[in-house]
């Protein structure tokens, strides 16, 4: 059975409202299927109550719904329900690990290892922690192909390394990193690993047990769910060492004016009234993903981006950044002599949504010696026609700027 993108696309109301829209910015945020929107609306309409507090029926039901989503996360990413704490997204998840695990363990002279292709969210928190403690942020270089330099990685990894943090799929280059290999090498030296799965969760089968990473983070809004919610995965070994760094109600066992004791992971990390509707909406997004065959949908996105990479090459006057052997549905390029913002505006006039800028990976672009690129990114609702429209409009653009 091949993947039926058109029937998938029909489930997304935005394309009914804008039938001519070619949406190629799913790496920034995905569109939302009707099922997710309905669950959000139903929750606020008919099920709304705060959780973990009320003894009345609505509150008990809201609590159950909220807790159930951990089971859905567990099923989607092959882990246990109590391995997932809710957080506002990838950015917050990384900050929780930096503040709650790394900082208490980091000392002067230690190192944190990241790749040169990290999103600012997986760079700045580590950088700030290192600065605070007099530790060193060490960077694994990226080759012109857009792949991690494995030899440099092995040289930089050492007993001084206190964390390896890496992106699964580069949001700028589309590279899929060999996470399992890097994780094994890190574990050989007792180094914990954090995976930024913002671009992989929901796009390909993500098996956390198999990858063996210690921490993983992602945002629901990139996998067909609402904004402002996501999850932090923590493996069994690190739960006791990951301390709360955000304090308030709902996360404590016992409080006196002198001291407080916290609940165990994950609840100890979820202080304050959480984004309850967001969690429920994330659950609906996971249900939606469960209706897909991720091998098939990934193959669909991969085929589209492969077609685009080939056609951009054939057009001439276009530079593609990186040609990794393993890539997902993301490609960054530059049109000779035309600023990426002008490319994006020109495409916008033809109803094609792409992103122009540094994609929150400024140091990576600096190394590639460009201030900005144009990026097209795919999801399950894109079709070959989208690629054809993009390529045809880029042809027009080149003629226009001749």
């Amino acid at each position, binding site marked *: 059975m091949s993947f039926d993108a058109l029937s998938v696309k029909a489930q997304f109301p935005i394309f009914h409202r804008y039938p001519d829209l070619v949406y190629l910015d799913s790496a920034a945020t995905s569109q939302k299927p009707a099922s997710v929107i309905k669950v959000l609306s139903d929750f606020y309409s008919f099920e709304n109550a705060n959780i973990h507090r009320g003894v009345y029926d609505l509150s008990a039901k809201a609590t159950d719904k909220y807790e159930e989503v951990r089971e859905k996360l567990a099923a989607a990413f092959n882990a246990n329900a109590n391995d997932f704490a809710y957080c506002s997204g990838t950015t917050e998840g990384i900050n929780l690990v930096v503040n709650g695990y790394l900082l208490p363990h980091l000392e002067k002279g230690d190192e944190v290892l990241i790749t040169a292709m990290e999103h600012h969210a997986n760079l700045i928190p580590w950088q700030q922690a290192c600065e605070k403690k007099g530790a060193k942020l060490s960077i694994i270089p990226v080759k012109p192909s857009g792949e991690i330099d494995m030899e440099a990685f092995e040289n930089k990894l050492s007993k001084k390394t206190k964390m390896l943090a890496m992106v699964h799929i580069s949001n700028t280059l589309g590279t899929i990193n060999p996470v399992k290999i890097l994780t094994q090498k890190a574990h050989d030296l007792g180094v914990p690993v954090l995976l930024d799965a913002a671009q992989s969760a929901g796009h390909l089968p993500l098996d956390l047990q198999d990858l063996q990473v210690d921490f993983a983070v992602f945002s629901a809004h990139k996998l067909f769910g609402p904004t402002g919610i996501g999850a932090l995965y923590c493996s069994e070994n690190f739960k006791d060492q990951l301390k709360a760094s955000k304090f308030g109600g709902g996360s404590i066992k016992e409080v006196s004016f002198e001291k407080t004791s916290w609940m165990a992971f994950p609840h100890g990390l979820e202080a304050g009234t959480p984004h309850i509707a967001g969690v429920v909406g994330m659950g609906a997004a996971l249900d939606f993903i469960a209706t897909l065959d991720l091998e098939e949908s990934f193959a669909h996105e991969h085929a589209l981006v492969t077609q685009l990479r080939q056609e951009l090459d054939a057009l001439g006057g276009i530079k593609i950044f990186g040609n990794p052997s393993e890539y997902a549905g993301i490609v960054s390029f530059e049109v000779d002599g*035309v*600023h990426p*913002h*002008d490319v994006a*505006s020109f495409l*916008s*006039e033809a109803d094609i949504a792409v992103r122009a*800028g540094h994609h929150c990976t400024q140091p990576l672009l600096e190394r590639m010696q460009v201030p*900005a690129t144009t990026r097209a990114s795919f999801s399950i609702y894109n079709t070959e026609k989208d690629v054809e429209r993009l390529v045809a409009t880029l042809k027009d653009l080149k003629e226009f700027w001749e």
Partner: protein
Amino acid sequence: MKSLYGDLIKQHQKNPYHFLKKEDVELSLRANNPICGDRYDLYIENEENVLSTLHFHGFGCALSKASASIMVETLEGKSYEEAKEICQNFLDYIHDKTNGEVYTEAFKAFEALHTQTARIDCVALTWKEMLSFLQTQSS
């Protein structure tokens, strides 16, 4: 949809007015947008509160470049007071706050910004820098 890239903009982007690095000029302003990396230097030669000769140089998108070029061409020879009003009119016009009134027809090249607001910052970049300079020069 009205295009952002009309003939006048294309013309100015290809052949910008007084596009030259004038490092010998003492008074210069730097207009930069840290978000996209666009950066221009404005070189001002002045006589008794008149912008007698203007040049600009730098890099950025077609819209920021054409807009800077039109600004330099429009403001050259104007007194600080006049220039201030013209800058204000331009910035108000691109935000659609002048009922269509423009100091010069050339501004209408940016009419598409009234409905496509995403690129206003590119177009306003050098004008805002010039206006804030002129405001510090007020008597």
